[in-house]
C-alpha cells in the first residue's frame, strides 16, 4: 500500500463524525438515485414494450402518408404476398399483414363506432400481444371466416358475448357501402382502455372481401428480435421491397412519436431533480474538504517545508475525497440494491398511481429490476462530482506559503 494512500485513509478518519456525515450525504443520494433510476429504466422499458407489443410492433411497411391520415385508399397492394416475401427474406415469422377501417358495429341493443383491423390469424400472435389476451372464447382461425374478436369494454357496451352476432357497417375502399354480419368468437382484455373500448379484429381475407380491398392491405407489422436491432431490420426490410413500389418503412418512433417524447420529457424533468441532488452533495463535500484543508494549514506547512510539493499535497486531498466517495458509492450501491431487491419482491406503488398507470400502459404495481445502469450511473456521477468539488481546496494548496502556513494559529 503506497504511503499516499495510507496517509489519505488515516486522514479521513481523524474526524470520524465529519467524514461519516459527508459519506452519509453521499449514501443518501446514492440510494435515492439507484432507486429512482432503476424505477425509471424499468418503467420506460415496460412502457415501450407493452405499447409496441399491443399493436404497433417495431416496424411497419405502409403506403406513404398512411401513418398520418389512415385513409382506406392508402394501400399496400398484394399484401399477403409481400408479407410472405419479407418473412422469407428476414427468416423470421414475426411479420404480419393487416388492413384497417372505421365502421359502425351494431348488436341487437347498441351501436358503436369502432376500428376494425383485418389480420392474418396465423401470424398476428407473433407480433402482437392481443391474441394472447383473449379472456373468453378463442382467437380467429380461418382466413375467410366471418368471425370477429372484440375488446372487453366494447363487448360490455354492446351487451354481447361469445356466440352473438354483430352487424358491421362502413365504407369500402372504392367508397361503396361495406356491410357484413359476423359472429363473435372471442373477447380480449388488453388493459389498454382505447383498445378494449373501440377495437376489433377480423380475418384479413374476410376483411378484404367486405371492404373491397382487392388483395390489398394497409400495413405489414414486423417485430425485430430486440429494440437494438430495429435500425438494422429497417434497412433489410427496405431492401426487400419491390424496387418500384411506392412504400415506406416506418420504425416505432415514427409511428408513435408521442411515446419517445413522453419518455424524453419525463427523463428531462427527472434529471433536473437528480442534478440538484448531486450539486447539493458536491457542496457538502466542498465544505468538508475545505475545512479539512484549512484546519491542517500548520501541518501542511511543515510537510511542505520538508520538501513535499504542493502538487503532491493536492493529490492527497483529492485521494481523500475519492476514498470518501468510494465508501459512499459502495454503501449507497449496496443499500440501494437491497432496496431494489426488496421492491422486486414486494412491488412499488403510491396512492393515485393506479389511475395514472393505465394511461401509460403500465401495471398499477411496479416491480423494479436490478440493472447495471440503474445501479452504477447515479453513484458514479456522485463520486465523480465529489472529486470535482474537491478540486478547489486541493488547488488552494498551490498558493500556500510554507513559512506563513507553519506560523498559522
Amino acid at each position, binding site marked *: 500500500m503506497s504511503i499516499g494512500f495510507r496517509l489519505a485513509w488515516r486522514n479521513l478518519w481523524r474526524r470520524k463524525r465529519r467524514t461519516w*456525515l459527508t459519506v452519509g450525504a453521499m449514501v*443518501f443520494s446514492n440510494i435515492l438515485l439507484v432507486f429512482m433510476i432503476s424505477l425509471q429504466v424499468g418503467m420506460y422499458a415496460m412502457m415501450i414494450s407493452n405499447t409496441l407489443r399491443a399493436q404497433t410492433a417495431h416496424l411497419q411497411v405502409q403506403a406513404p402518408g398512411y401513418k398520418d391520415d389512415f385513409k382506406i385508399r392508402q394501400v399496400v397492394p398484394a399484401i399477403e404476398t409481400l408479407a410472405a416475401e419479407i418473412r422469407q427474406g428476414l427468416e423470421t415469422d414475426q411479420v404480419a399483414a393487416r388492413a384497417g377501417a372505421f*365502421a359502425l358495429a351494431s348488436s341487437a341493443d347498441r351501436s358503436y363506432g369502432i376500428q376494425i383491423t383485418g389480420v392474418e390469424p396465423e401470424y398476428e400472435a407473433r407480433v402482437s400481444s392481443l391474441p394472447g389476451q383473449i379472456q373468453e372464447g378463442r382467437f380467429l382461425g380461418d382466413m375467410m371466416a366471418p368471425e370477429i374478436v372484440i375488446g372487453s369494454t366494447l363487448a360490455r357496451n354492446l351487451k354481447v358475448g361469445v356466440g352473438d352476432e354483430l352487424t358491421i357497417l362502413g365504407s369500402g375502399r372504392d367508397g361503396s357501402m361495406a356491410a357484413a354480419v359476423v359472429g363473435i368468437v372471442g373477447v380480449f382484455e388488453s388493459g389498454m382502455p382505447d383498445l378494449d373500448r373501440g377495437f376489433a379484429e377480423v380475418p384479413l381475407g374476410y376483411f378484404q372481401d367486405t371492404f373491397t380491398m382487392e388483395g390489398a392491405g394497409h400495413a405489414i407489422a414486423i417485430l425485430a428480435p430486440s429494440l437494438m436491432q430495429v435500425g438494422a431490420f429497417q434497412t433489410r426490410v427496405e431492401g426487400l421491397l419491390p424496387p418500384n413500389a411506392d412504400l415506406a418503412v416506418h420504425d416505432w418512433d415514427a409511428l408513435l412519436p408521442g411515446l419517445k417524447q*413522453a419518455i424524453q420529457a419525463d427523463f428531462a424533468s427527472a434529471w*433536473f431533480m437528480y442534478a440538484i441532488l448531486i450539486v447539493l452533495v458536491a457542496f*457538502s463535500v466542498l465544505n468538508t474538504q475545505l475545512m479539512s484543508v484549512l484546519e491542517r494549514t500548520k501541518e501542511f506547512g511543515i510537510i511542505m517545508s520538508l520538501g513535499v510539493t504542493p502538487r503532491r499535497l493536492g493529490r492527497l486531498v483529492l485521494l481523500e475525497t475519492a476514498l470518501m466517495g468510494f465508501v459512499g458509492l459502495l454503501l449507497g450501491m449496496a443499500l440501494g440494491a437491497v432496496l431494489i431487491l426488496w421492491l422486486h419482491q414486494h412491488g412499488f406503488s403510491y396512492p393515485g398511481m393506479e389511475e395514472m398507470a393505465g394511461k401509460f400502459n403500465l401495471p398499477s404495481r411496479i416491480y423494479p429490476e436490478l440493472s447495471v445502469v440503474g445501479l452504477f450511473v447515479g453513484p458514479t456521477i456522485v463520486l465523480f462530482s465529489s472529486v470535482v468539488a474537491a478540486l478547489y481546496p486541493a488547488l488552494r494548496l498551490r498558493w500556500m506559503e510554507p513559512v506563513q502556513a507553519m506560523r498559522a494559529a
Partner: protein
Amino acid sequence: MGSWRITLRFAWRNLWRNHRRTLIMLAAIVVGTWAMIFMTALMRGMVDEMVQDGVSVLPGHVQIHHPDYRDDPTVVNRIAPPTGDLLEVLNRPEVVAWTTRVRVPAVISSERDTRGVTLIGTDPEGEQAISFVADDLVEGRFLESRHDKGVVVGRKLVERLETDLGKRVVIMSQDGENEIADRGFRIVGIFESKLDQYEEGFVFAAEGTVQELLGMGDEISEIAILGTDYRNVEDLDRMVAQAAGPEMEVLPWQELDAYLGSMLAVMDGFVFVWIVVVFLALSFGLVNTLVMAVFERVREIGLMLALGMTPKNILSQVVLESILLLAIGLAFGNLLAWASIEPLKDGIDVSVVGEGMEYFGAASVLYPALYLKDIILANVTVIVLGFLASLSPAWRASRYDPVEAITKV
C-alpha cells in the same frame, strides 16, 4: 430580553468567523431552496394547465347523468331536463353556468372517409359559458340556436375526412329504439384545440336537432355545471346531489376523469416529498457545518460556561446560528426562484416533445405556477427540520464540562 440580544449577536458574529464555510453552506441552501420552489412551480403549472384544459373541454365541474350512463354512454340512458328543485339550485349564485347536453357515440362520414366520434348536442347559449369550443373557433361560426342544422368539428377531423367548411357530412348514431338513425349536416364551424385528441374526437351539433334525430323528445344525456373554483367542488357537488335526488348520478370532475383527478392529488404529495428530499440532502451539510463550528470552539464554549453562561444560552446560540444561516439562505433562495420564474411567466415552449406532453395530457407550452402555499411549505419545512437537525450539535455543545473543555488542546 437583554440576554436574547446578546445571544443573537453572538450567533451572528460566530456565523461570519469562517465566512468561506458559511458562504458555501449558504450557496447550498440557496440552490436547494431555488430547486424546491422552481421545480414545484413547473410541475404545478403543468398540472394546473392540464386540469383547466380538461375541465374546460367538457366536463364542467360537476355533472349529472343517468346512473348507468357512465358505463353505457348511449341514448338509452337519458334523463329529463331539470325542473323544480334542481332547476332552482342550478340558478343559484354558486353556479356560474350550466348547460344540458346530448352526448352519444356516433360515426361521421364524408364522401372520402369515415370516423368514430362523440356527438355532442349542445344548447349553444349554455355551452359557450362552459366549454372551450366557442372560443377556439377558427373558421365559420358556432351553432346559433337549439335547432341549428349545422355541425362544428375540429380542424384535425376536417383533415382526416378531407372535407371543409360548408361541405356536408353524414352522422350516424343509434336512436331510442335501437335503430340506426342518420342525417346529413353542413359543417358551419371549425375549432382548434390544444390537444389533437379533442379536435379529432368531438363533433358539436344543436341539441334540438340531435334530440329530433334520435327521437328522444326533450330528454338529455347530461347536465354540466360550472362552479366558481375547480379545486373546491365538494359543496357544489353536495348541493346539486341533494336537489337531483337518488335517481340521478351527480359526480365531480375528479371522479369523471380519474386520471386528472389523481394527477392533482398526486401533485400535492409529490411537492412535499420533493421538498423533504432536497432538505435531507442539505441537512447533512448543515449538521456537518454546525458540528465543525462547535468543535473548533470547544475551549471558548468551556470558558463561557466557566464565566457563568448557562447551557441553555449555549444551546440557543448554536441553534440560532443555524436558523440565521437557513433564514439568509431561504431569503436568497426565494428571491432567486422568483427572479427565475418571473421571466418565464409567458410560458416555456416545450413543443420539441409536444406529442410526448400530449401523452401526459398536457399542452406544449408550460406556464410555471408559483403558489404562496408551496412557498410557505418549502420555507416552513426548511426552518422546522433545520431547527430539529441543529438540536443535536447544539445539545452536545451545551453539555460540555467547563473544566475539561477549557483544558482541551
